[in-house]
């Protein structure tokens, strides 16, 4: 399928438009086998479109892409044999039980009956769905549904897995569970193409991150490399009156001041030590602080730093 020299996924100049709306404006990607690659971007950036093209769901208007050594346009069945896709929107059969869904996948992967049953049972166990396996997905929580979805993808033992926003809409605990599952897959040597709108998710899981904005890749690198390009976090201090603001600005020095809101933005990594040092300095000058908020860098900061505009809430993916 792939060896260490040829990338698991390689795309050059991918383009896609719907009407006069350009969704992908010539993107290049390279993902090495056995690594986690994250495409990071807000809603409408084109992440899902990229996954749809690479997983043979839709054709690109231009450019080329090879997945597992096969051309997505010319040899889609070769690509399909190697990949698994778990999309943002649930891809389970709602009229079949969890177990029946897995057995359906086993049949469609042409596994012998006994192997299919064994694999379905193993996946139900692994994804904590043994009791739920006999029930219809309508009775599942969001996290369980997502786990069943991923379990169905794994029945065929794909070497390359596309995860399109796997944790969007999940509660924090389900999110942690999904991250753990993804780490186990990576440990098993699977290549993962992950899209997300959460910087912490990409940070947590990905070897390399590409930031997608308005159909273009605006930055690519490791999490550490990207973070170096993002201004650090800060602390926002609010004061009761203009005099407090004035003396605090003098005491702290390097700050961004907003007279109207009576706030100061103090650059900080948000650590306890840094916070204590700020508060100590204010204490020494006997200045009262009305409110304090710690701000760590998020996707908005990344976007602002890389593109000069904040993320927007348009949703062009559907």
């Amino acid at each position, binding site marked *: *399928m*792939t*060896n260490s020299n040829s990338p698991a996924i390689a795309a050059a100049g991918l383009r896609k438009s719907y009407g006069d709306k350009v969704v992908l404006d010539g993107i290049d990607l390279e993902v090495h086998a056995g690594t986690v690659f994250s495409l990071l971007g807000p809603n409408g950036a084109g992440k899902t479109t990229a996954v*749809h093209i690479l*997983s*043979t*769901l*839709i054709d690109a208007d231009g450019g080329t892409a090879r997945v597992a*050594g096969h051309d997505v346009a010319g*040899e889609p*069945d*070769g690509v*399909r*044999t*190697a*990949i*698994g*896709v778990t*999309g943002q*929107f*649930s*891809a*389970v*059969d*709602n*009229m*079949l039980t969890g177990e*029946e869904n897995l057995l*359906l996948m086993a*049949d*469609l*992967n*042409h596994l012998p009956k006994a192997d299919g049953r064994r694999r379905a049972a193993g996946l139900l166990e692994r994804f904590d769905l043994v009791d739920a396996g006999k029930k219809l997905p309508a009775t599942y929580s969001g996290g369980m549904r997502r786990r069943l979805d991923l379990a*169905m*993808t794994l029945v*065929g033992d794909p070497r390359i897995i596309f995860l399109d926003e796997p944790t969007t809409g999940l509660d924090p605990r389900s999110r942690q569970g999904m991250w753990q599952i993804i780490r186990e897959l990576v440990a098993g040597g699977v290549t993962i193409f992950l899209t997300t709108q959460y910087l912490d998710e990409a940070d947590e899981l990905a070897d390399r991150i590409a930031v997608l904005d308005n159909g273009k890749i605006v930055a690519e690198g490791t999490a550490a490399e990207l973070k170096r390009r993002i201004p650090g976090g800060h602390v926002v201090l609010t004061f009761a009156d203009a005099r407090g603001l004035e003396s605090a600005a003098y005491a702290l020095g390097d700050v961004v001041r907003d007279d109207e809101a009576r706030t100061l933005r103090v650059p900080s990594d948000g650590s306890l030590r840094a916070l204590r040092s700020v508060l100590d300095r204010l204490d020494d000058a006997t200045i009262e602080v009305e409110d304090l908020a710690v701000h760590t860098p998020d996707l908005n900061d990344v976007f602002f730093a890389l593109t000069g505009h904040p993320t927007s809430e348009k949703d062009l993916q559907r």
Partner: protein
Amino acid sequence: MTTMAPARPSYAFQDSMTMLRRNLKHALRYPSLTIGTIGVPVIFLLLFAGVFGSALGVGIGGVDYIDYLAPGIILMAATSGSIGTAVSVSMDMTEGIINRFRTMAISRTAVLTGHVVGSVIQTMISIVAVVAVALAMGFRPTATFLEWLAVAGLLVMLIFALTWISAALGLVAKGPEAASNAPLPFTFLPLLGSGFVPTETMPAGVRWFAEHQPFTPIIETLRGLLMGTPIGNNGWLAVGWCVAIALAGYLWARSAFQRVKA
């Protein structure tokens, strides 16, 4: 590492059978569509033969009206079965699992073949139920065993053909509700043919349409096989229409399936 072979054509049958099992499981779990398929023709049978029968029978002359009507009602059962396919295909296309199927190395039309074959099986079962009700109401066909086989064969061909058209309508419809209306003309075409009354009794314009639309030779062939009335060249016309409709429906459905938006 190994190079996996792409899906071979030999999997097309296996995949279609897998999809057929999926559809039959759906039908067993949610039998309301199937029950509706049986219900409509039975109600028409009770209404036309039971309530209007004696009045309508006068115009036919000499024949028991139920013997004239039953083949038309059987045809109606075949067509109303096709509506179910449009709805179930359309509903299925709104499910995320269809996108999953498209990213898997499975035969492209297996999903549709599963729907169509499942629907043919369900519709044949509902036709057996309709025939049983008709027999209970006094329908007395003269068909031999071989003629019954020919009836079954023609019905399977017809249902297969209508179901492919219906599957295509389900794919292009803007949702399950639109899909349930799209194939309605099929249910009413037998009315504008020789299904309920002979075409000679109709006004000239309607009569021309009634005599040339595909359902009339099919009904006449069914009636001939069941009741021994003359078939003439209607048999070949019926088979020809079925083959043509099936082929058109299959090609239309296949291309519509490729165009369904991801």
